């Protein structure tokens, strides 16, 4: 399994997307899931992206969120550092969210609120809470560890794998299972549907647009829908670039109060 993971990792990161032959080799559902995780969350050694979200509630009312994400991987599928700098709306400008993603233990998360001049650690715990009021969860932003679910390949076509994921600890999540359709070309998850105990789909996360950036297939537009209330959040990514050689030092508490401005300049 480890070998397979390594192989698949190579397939995505170096050989590049449209090599179908490699991808079709995989039959172990866990390996597919792991590879999808890497494709979605570990492209390049590091990366930067300007993101914006439009959150629409059931009544059609909207809220905006705009932020820049800096990310650096320690190893693909392994530890990862992340910084999220908010710029809109104006009254939350300079709010910073910092994550140190761990594999063996819970992630470390911190928060800087300039309005209160406060850095706060977010206690380890449930990551299936809303990401700043959107329909995305924290876990959608940082990635749900593939070790948390049991995977089953429920169908396969020339273009897609469809996996059914069942949580190993059902009490820790709000879904009873989810199904994810993964593109064989890019190994990116295209659509995940979450089901409740009654077997009804209530939530859907979808990659709307995929672009190739510096050779990495990248989701530049995604959408999560609340199938019950009708609310949704659109997230768009711009100015995505990979392998910037972000220094380790910027992923620190210091950067939260004093953002590393040179790395946040978008127009190059």
């Amino acid at each position, binding site marked *: 399994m480890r070998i397979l993971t390594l192989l698949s990792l190579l397939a995505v990161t170096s050989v590049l997307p449209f090599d179908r032959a490699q991808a079709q080799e995989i039959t172990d559902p866990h390996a597919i899931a792991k590879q999808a995780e890497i494709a979605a969350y570990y492209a390049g050694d590091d990366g930067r992206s300007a993101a*914006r979200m*439009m959150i629409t*509630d*059931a*009544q059609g*009312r*909207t*809220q*905006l969120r*705009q932020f820049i994400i800096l990310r650096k991987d320690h190893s693909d599928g392994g530890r990862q550092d992340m910084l999220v700098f908010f710029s*809109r*709306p*104006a*009254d*939350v*400008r300079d*709010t910073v969210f910092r994550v140190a993603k761990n594999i063996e233990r819970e992630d470390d998360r911190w*928060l800087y*609120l*300039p*309005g*209160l001049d*406060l850095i*706060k*650690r*977010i*206690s*380890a*715990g*449930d990551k*299936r*809470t*809303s*990401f*700043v*009021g*959107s329909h995305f969860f*924290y876990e959608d932003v940082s990635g749900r560890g593939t070790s948390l679910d049991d995977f089953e390949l429920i169908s396969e076509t020339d273009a897609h794998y469809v996996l059914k994921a069942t949580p190993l600890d059902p*009490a820790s999540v*709000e879904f009873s299972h989810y199904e994810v359709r993964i593109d064989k070309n890019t190994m990116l998850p295209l659509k995940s549907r979450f089901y409740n*105990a*009654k077997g009804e789909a209530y939530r859907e996360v979808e990659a709307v647009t995929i672009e190739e950036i510096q050779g990495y297939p990248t989701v530049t537009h995604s959408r999560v829908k609340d199938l*019950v*209330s009708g*609310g949704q959040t659109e997230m768009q990514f*711009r100015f995505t670039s990979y392998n910037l050689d972000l220094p380790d030092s910027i992923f620190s508490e210091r950067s939260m109060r004093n953002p590393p401005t040179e790395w946040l300049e978008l127009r190059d």
Partner: protein
Amino acid sequence: MVNLLLTLSTRHRRWVFWALAALTLALASQLPRITIDTDPENMLPVDHPQRAFHNQAKETFSMHDMIVVGVVSENSIYDPATLTALHSVARFSAGLDGVIAADLMSLADVDNISQAEPGTIRFEWMMKTPPETVSEALAIRDQVADLPLLYNTIVADSDQAAAIYVPIKDKNESYRLAEQIRGHINSLDSADDWHITGLPVAEDQFGYEMFVQMGISAPLAGLVIFILLYMFFRNVPFILAAMIVAMATVVITMGLLIGLGFTVHIMSSMIAIFLMPIAVVDSVHILSEFADRHKPGDDVKNTLADVMRHLFQPMLFTSVTSAVGFLSLLLTPIPPVQIFGAFVGFGILLAFVITVIFVPAYISALKPATLARLSKVEAAQGGRFARTIQGLGKRSGRYAKFWVAAFIAISAISVVGIQQININDNPIRWFKEGHEIRVADKVLNKHFAGTYDAYLVLQSKADSQQLLVNAMDKQLSNAALTTKTRNWLAEQRDALLGDMAAGEFIWNLEDKLYEVKGAEAEALSELMQSAEQLGSNSKTFTSPAILAYMDGLQDYLLTTGLVGKSNSLADVVKTVNRELGSGAPEDYAIPASAQGVAQVLMQYQSSHRPQDLWHFVTPDYQQSLIWLQLTSGDNQHMTAVTAAVDTYLDTHPLPAGLELNWAGKAYLNVVWQEAMVEGMLASLISAFVVVFVMMVVLFRSLVFGVLAMLPLTLTISFIYGLIGWIGKDYDMPIAVLSSLTLGLSVDFAIHFIERARATQAETKDWQSTLSILFDEPARAISRNAIVIAVGFTPLLFAPLVPYITVGVFLASIMAISALVTLIMLPAVMTLARRLIFKTEN
């Protein structure tokens, strides 16, 4: 005219029978289409501004109709067994179709905001899985006690009760949902007491009991009237005439109401029981007089002609005056009361028409043998009933001065009583004491901060959208823009004036900024800056000063003792700020800057239930809601709360640019009560004037007109004085009684005065006139009073309090007004006979 009618109806009686049968059957076919309406909101017209505002506020802040499930434990609910049951009921309820699971509130559904370890903040489910030990259960208590928004709302500070608030999509489904939840609770074998309440449940239950009322009371009224008539006339075929009139009137009127698409509301559900006794009144007069006059061997048609000539005019007038009393309800601004008034008024006129056409036709078709039995009974009955009535007549004439003095004294006392009338209502008290809904209401309000909701909605008056449009206009005239960009901007402007949000424009503008260069980019950047600035400025409810104002208002409300608890955005901000800070009480405060508030709120949105924020503020932060929990649904109580807020506003003016409005069921009840009290006064006064004018016209005499109004004026004053003295609340059913009493009780005076004048003209001697008056005429009046009074008594067996109130009061009003008529009129006429009969003699 009377003769022609009589000839036609008796000669073509088959036609009369068939036509009545056909009409009745045709409209009876509409009855199954009945739709029940139990929504107290419908006491106000759909487009009533305060009702529309209430519904808008409910929608804006997602304040759904709720079923409230309460669990009460003898010792403590913080026990694994109780919390396991609570968890199970909450999960079961959330899974039901028709429940808005995302907004369901209970220990098992809410988030705990806490500091898991020093210096950290944590959002986690309060009770994702039920506790297994008592100490785990007690840990939940400690956590929830720290969250002001939840404490005393989903758990009681007595530790003995917890609640599950189940929001539902359609309140018409509440009965089914409540039944399913009840079934689940029963399957749990819980040792605790469970209660299910909430307005939608009460409404549904009310609808069910309305059906019971209609199913029981109306037929029972029919039966009672039948028995009474039998006691009077001892002749079944004869009294069937009256019963047929009553049945046909009720069926046609109700069929018409339903056929025309009106819903049956609490008021219209009483139409049948109102019409039943009123409809037989005219028939009783005809039957009474016919029985008196008809001797064996007489030509039935001649007797009928005599009777009808005698009675046609007074019957027409009494019917019209009764109808006027009910039709005056059209002047109230309460649609169900209007429909009730209109259809009862119509029914009374219909009953008159059916009576004058059908009853003579029916009697003329009876066998002579049947009619022959009548006179015997009438003669035999002369006995005690007649003697009592005669005695009454003697006394009223002899002690005339005493009676008049007594009536003046009663009027004076009544006026004082009327001034003490207590205007109040409470829909939950429409259920009887001991009804499970009232029990649940009592228990839950004892334990919690209150299950009655009122909302204070604060909103910014600033039109930020217009300011943004102005900023766009400025750039539209900027020469730097290309035609393409200008067109785009003009389109955006139009969309913004339509229903596009400012946020969407910022989103689109940002896209555009990437496309343009140079001077264009500068122009659009400037616009972007203005748009963002306007966006920030328009976020009224992130302002610490405004939140502090709301906080102050809430503190004040708590000191009045009228409000169990209030919840607002200020509470959300303070709680989250505390947990972001030290977690200690001194950090339970509003941040110093609007940015601080916005950042605190973004953290609140990072929970499992981000949408909870929108119960207290709109996403544009221009409207905010303070949720008041009251422990009583008394309108008086709610009125005191609004008065308290007004007082506060006098000394603490609202921050500039804000306006404050009320919404919420408890408040809406006050609105329609006030509308009703005002409307009832208008309806009473107009009915009084119309009836008075009719009396003057009927008797062609101002003096007799005044005389006719005297007994009912005294009766109404007496009844309302009594209500004031005994402290019975002036509520919906009491309010409705006034104008219809007027229409009904004037009937007695009309018959009495009409006969008095006719008799006086013959005898020219007042003492002999009095003696004759207290023979057949007084007997007919008494009979009718008894029929109507007793006809309403089946309402006493109704399952709902308003029906009982109406039954008790109408029965007493009828009895009192008949008595007053028979005592007061002779007394006054005795004293003032010179003035009264001056013209006649």
